[in-house]
């Protein structure tokens, strides 16, 4: 350190960051300049700081990760997309379950002959992959049986319940139609497959509730 400047080493080192960053006022800047000119230790610190900043500026702005990170990202952006067959098999299984539950929940011995408001399945599912059509047919059977059970007891149901049921079915059938339209252009889409299954389940559940009211 030298004694020829008014700024001591501690203050100079303290001011060094602002000095190299260009954020010192003019007077302080001149003081640091003067100190560095006369103090070898602080001048060495100053050189090392400049060198550090030069190295920082040279760091590569881009570094390739050691492995491809995309698969881990992609699986978080959308649910895993398995082969279409797995979804449609799952859908068929869900439909079969609905049929089984329907058979159990039916209280009467009558054989369903098809409910008046059942969706015309063949037309509605035209253009869907065969596996999906099959699942749809299973669901159609389940809903037809429930509709038949409801028809047989329609007289026992309050008119308000019948009206609410018809309103609900209209909404659900419209939703089913929309999902089917989307599925025709993207049959393997797992979201749509799930949506179709859950919409069918909702329909079965609504019908089942009504049947329970009458038994």
């Amino acid at each position, binding site marked *: 350190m030298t004694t020829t400047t008014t700024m001591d080493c501690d203050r100079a080192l*303290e001011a060094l*960051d602002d000095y190299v960053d260009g954020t010192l006022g003019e007077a302080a800047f001149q003081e640091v300049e003067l100190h560095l000119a006369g103090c070898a230790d602080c001048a060495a*610190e100053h050189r*090392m*700081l400049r060198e*550090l*900043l030069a*190295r*920082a*500026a*040279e*760091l*590569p*702005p*881009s*570094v*390739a*990760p*050691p*492995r491809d*990170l*995309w698969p*881990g*990202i*992609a699986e*978080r*952006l*959308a649910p895993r997309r398995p082969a279409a067959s797995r979804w449609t098999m799952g859908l068929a299984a869900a439909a079969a379950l609905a049929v089984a539950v329907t058979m159990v929940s039916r209280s009467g011995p009558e054989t369903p002959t098809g409910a008046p408001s059942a969706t015309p399945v063949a037309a509605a599912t035209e253009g869907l992959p065969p596996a999906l059509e099959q699942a749809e047919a299973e669901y159609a059977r389940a809903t037809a049986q429930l509709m038949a059970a409801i028809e047989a007891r329609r007289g026992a149901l309050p008119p308000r319940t019948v009206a609410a049921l018809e309103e609900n079915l209209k909404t659900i059938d419209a939703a089913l139609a929309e999902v089917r339209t989307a599925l025709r252009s993207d049959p393997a889409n797992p979201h749509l497959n799930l949506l179709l299954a859950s919409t069918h389940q909702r329909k079965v559940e609504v019908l089942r509730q009504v049947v329970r009211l009458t038994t």
Partner: protein
Amino acid sequence: MSTTIASPVPDDRAVERGLVARAQQGDLVAFEELYRRNVGRVFALCCRLAGDGLRAEELAQDVFVRAWQKIGQFRGDSAFSSWLHPLAVNTALSERRSLKRRTARVFATDDLEAFDRPGRGPGREARLDLDKALGTLPPGARAVFVLHDVEGYKHEEIARMTGVATGTSKAQLHRARRLLREALAR
């Protein structure tokens, strides 16, 4: 911020705008292309802020998941990389805040092998040294050094991003620079 981000050439900007528009419509293929174009920049930033190469991989993935969630908010008035950069900083910094309960990872110094690749030319050793030295810094000091001296943010911006006072940011930078000078002089 004063960081200069390499702007794509006009044609490339048009391609990028197309990719962004498709990604905003839910097109994963387009988003993957945006990922490929930007992952190096994001990964480098995450490595330096996290001080841990493995954690940086997870962080970079978090950044792109968040980008996918927020891409609808991107208005397209800047390059996609300029929009992504603060998102990456915020993701890495929020990680740093929650890292206080996982301090074991903070001082990792030997897992930045991603930087240790051959064929970088004469400046390579110096850069490696600095990247490794960064990993030895206390997290607060490291974050401020990376943001100020590598990424070019101003103290006021760093204070906003990290939730500390401007004076604290300056003090952390002073500390980081001193520690790095000592580490590199060894």
